[in-house]
């Protein structure tokens, strides 16, 4: 019978239309500005720099090694090394960045900088409402620095693993120091 397929299709449409009123499963979207879904734990948008403790300048983990700058696919990171060194969490003297800029308009949120960073310093953020009136959007070191607590809030699993690994390194370094100190005292 001509029209049978269309009627069958319309029955299916009708079932979906009625279903959307009582079945939450069928509604996969939310009304965005009023209602927001929390981002998934692994979600990534733009990079940020992690600092330990409360001081964004003294606690910044970045050692200006420029690996992220070299590996960044669209080359949106620019780093200028400072000439003065400061001690890191193990007490070793390390360089730190004088300038650390990320051009967010160029960044393509691939996460390779966070992946290659050997100091767990650069990580991916979850902020997303970044629209603005200006054309350029370059984030400087002070805009990029965010605390380790914040990192723990947005990526709990990853942050726990990083904190554990760093605590282990500190323990090893202290044990080594104690072992070196012991023969002298003996």
């Amino acid at each position, binding site marked *: 019978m001509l029209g049978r397929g269309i009627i069958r*299709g319309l029955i*299916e*449409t009708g079932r*979906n239309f009625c279903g959307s009123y009582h079945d939450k499963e069928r509604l996969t*979207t939310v009304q965005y500005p009023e209602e927001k879904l929390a981002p*998934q734990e*692994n*979600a990534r948008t733009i990079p940020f720099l992690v600092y330990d403790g409360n001081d964004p300048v003294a606690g910044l983990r970045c050692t200006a090694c420029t690996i992220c700058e070299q*590996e960044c696919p669209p080359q949106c990171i620019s780093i200028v090394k400072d000439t003065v060194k400061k001690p890191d969490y193990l007490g070793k003297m390390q360089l730190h960045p004088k300038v650390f800029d990320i051009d967010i308009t160029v960044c393509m949120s691939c996460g*390779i900088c966070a992946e290659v960073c050997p100091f767990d310093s650069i990580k991916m953020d979850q902020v997303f409402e970044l629209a603005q009136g200006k054309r350029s959007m370059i984030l400087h070191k002070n805009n990029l620095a965010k605390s380790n607590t914040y990192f723990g809030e947005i990526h709990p699993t990853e942050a726990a693993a990083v904190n554990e690994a760093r605590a282990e390194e500190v323990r090893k370094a202290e044990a080594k120091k104690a072992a070196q100190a012991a023969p002298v005292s003996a």
Partner: protein
Amino acid sequence: MIATPEIQTARTRGIANHELLEVSMGPHHPSTHGVFRMNVLLDGEVIVKLTPVFGYLHRNHEKIAEKNSYLSAIPYTDRLDYICSMTNNWAYVLSVEKLAGIAVPERAEYIRVITAELTRLFNHACLAGFLLQDMGALGTPLMYAFREREKILDLFESLTGSRMMCNYLRFGGCRCDLPDGWLKQAAGVLAAFSPFLDQFEALLDENEILHARSEGVGVLPRELAINAGVTGPGLRASGVNYDVRKVDHYGIYDRFPFRVPLGEHGDVLDRYMVRILEMRESIKILDQALREIAPGPIIDPKAKLRNLRPKAGEAYGRIEGPKGELGFYLISDGGPTPYRFRVRPPSLINLTVLEDMCIGHSISDVVIILGSVDIVLGEVDR
């Protein structure tokens, strides 16, 4: 369509003898799936000549990849066919693995199969939705397809951190392991996909309008399809049994018993039906993969992430992408960047037969013929 003697003359001679009209379709036309332009020569409503014009989305992909390191090219491959980033990643890492001789652990192979087949599922579902949208079914099939795609994209987001630009595969494995409960969630999505397909087919398969619009339209003859190098569902709809998964046995596809659906007539309806049947086969592959995946390492510990310098040589890695055979041809001169980086994009090569499929059909059929080829302009223009 009523074939008047004049139109038949125009068809047989390839050009009509009375007044012709040249129309520029696109680049900003909702039916062109991006920024694609066709210069069509019309005799009334019938196509006499069609010249595709592309390059509006050219982003210099190949030269950028030749300038950047091997690792930095992965996120750029996401943006080739921006609907199916996982399969693009796979084709690229496969060719680098061939070039540098890197082995892949079993769990990573399973993860690759799972993500690639999920990509195939939502690519084909969306394509069917877009095709029906082009035929005038405004929204309904497309929205149903997008509802399922949404669930798969959520899976990808929880795994890779990004919904579309996944940047997930690495040389010798994957970037990170599956999060807790991911496989269960994936099994849930998969269990809902089969009923969705039943519903989708009930909605469309017998639809008289779909049949009237697509039967016998845009026929791609078997010989032409082979000679032009068409691959993917478009080739199989013309009755050629060629699937890189079966031919090349790349990854671990020889462990999965699945059939290759073939068409008979090579028209738009066959291309639509082949995709629906392929989704059924993908569901079977996924069922098996989700059942068999075992814990283990996800990346070859010897594989280098940075400073990869493969020995001088060349490699061609290809996979069966949702749109056809996607290949990457790499030449290394031993340096940190590829000496030559060449993409074999299925969309572009499938598009070469567009004129042959369109001549003699009306201008409204061009829209659905283009829709059934399944192109993404990111891949065509690169």
